[in-house]
């Protein structure tokens, strides 16, 4: 799994951080998403998918082909 985030779209809602704190964080300065782990371990895949699905800005993209 390869995760990427679109910083321009992120509206800082923090849903990803609440759901998958191992993978996402928010910048203290601007509240914008910080990707901690672009290639998360398999056990995290479900929560990463959940985070991408509920991100209100559709700012998280997942490529499962890797």
């Amino acid at each position, binding site marked *: 799994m390869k995760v990427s985030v679109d910083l321009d779209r992120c*509206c*800082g*809602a*923090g*849903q990803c*951080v*609440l759901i998958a*704190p191992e993978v996402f964080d*928010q*910048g*203290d*300065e*601007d*509240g*914008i998403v910080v990707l901690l782990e672009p290639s998360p371990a398999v056990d995290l895949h479900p929560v990463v*998918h*959940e985070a991408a*699905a*509920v991100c*209100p*800005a*559709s700012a998280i993209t997942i490529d499962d082909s890797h």
Partner: protein
Amino acid sequence: MRENDLDLLRLPLPSDNPLEPPAEWERLRRQCPVSTVELPSGDKATYLTRYDHVKALLSDARFARPTAEDEGAARIAPEGAGGPAADGSSTLTLPDRGEPHLRWRRQVGKYFTAKRMTALRPGMVRTAEGLVYDMVRQGQPADLKACLGFPLPVYVICDILGVPAADRDRFSHWSDAFLNVSRYTGEQTRAAYEEFAEYMSAHIAATRAEPGEDLISMVIGESEGEGQGLTDDELLGTAMGLLVAGHETTANMIGKMVAMLLADRTRWERLLADQGLVRTAVDEALRFDANLGFGIRRYLTEDVEVDGEVLPRGTTVVCSMPAANRDERVFTDADDMVLSRSPNPHLTFGAGPHSCLGQSLARTELQVTLDVLLRKLPTLRLAVSIDELQRVEGLLVGGLSTVPVRW
């Protein structure tokens, strides 16, 4: 496909009881996902009910809520009715579109990070426990909305703005006067606004002199650093905006969430058995709420195509999030409340650049409410039958007028 004028739909659509969705939604999604409706003002708008359409339009950064400048935009309520909430934000001086909106949003939004919400949580738990304690002391049956739903969010907003606890009840009154258009005259609403503005201006000045940990201090501190922060007017507008956007919405949602969970008590029992479900249950309550107001308006400043139809510039579109939240194309068993549903990409907080700024706060408040009630009042139940629950026909946020409970 459009209906002809004879069958013109009027909002709000009727439903069997206040917790049920209007039967019309299902038909609209299937047959007429882009339809014409009449609002209580008599103005006409285009009504979207499918998930994909609603999400795409809300996410489209070109469009925003209509303002007074948008010529011919459909009004929700007739002229004169409705406070600041009825037409969006008439008295607010907040940037609501384009670059300035983005800048405001980033400046204020960074306060609402997941980490900060986690830090606010213990305080919220104490506040909620205190309110539940007072409710129990008053005796049963009690109105859960008045005892817990209404005060909790306003107390939380006061903490966030750095307003001392002693002044919380004044804030409750102001917020009520801004929003409760049937109970207050225009005169009273204006008087409340003046008192609020005077109070907040003094509070902002005091905060400048002696900053703390609150949102106002944070924004002031940052702006000094960057030299392009918010003016006092914008800070006042922000405080007012947070109170108006965050109070009635959350208060009603607390009432509706508890009512939905108690309406079928097996739901409550399931949560008692597994409190780990609280997080997903809260989002499912947000999705399942059929009494969410009309939806959110967008004013089209250019033509846009939806479902193969071109909606011309100048159209006002009403995006029905609650209808989209029941779209069976996206949610399996859309008409069942599935407490463990995950992922749950509901649109109750909107989507895109205007999506609810306070959503992590609202979620935290709802989770805290549920945690505290499950722990302190496991025997909670509705004191009336579902049919006796009364809807308040909110303009932006629907709700139940009271939520009578026993324990």
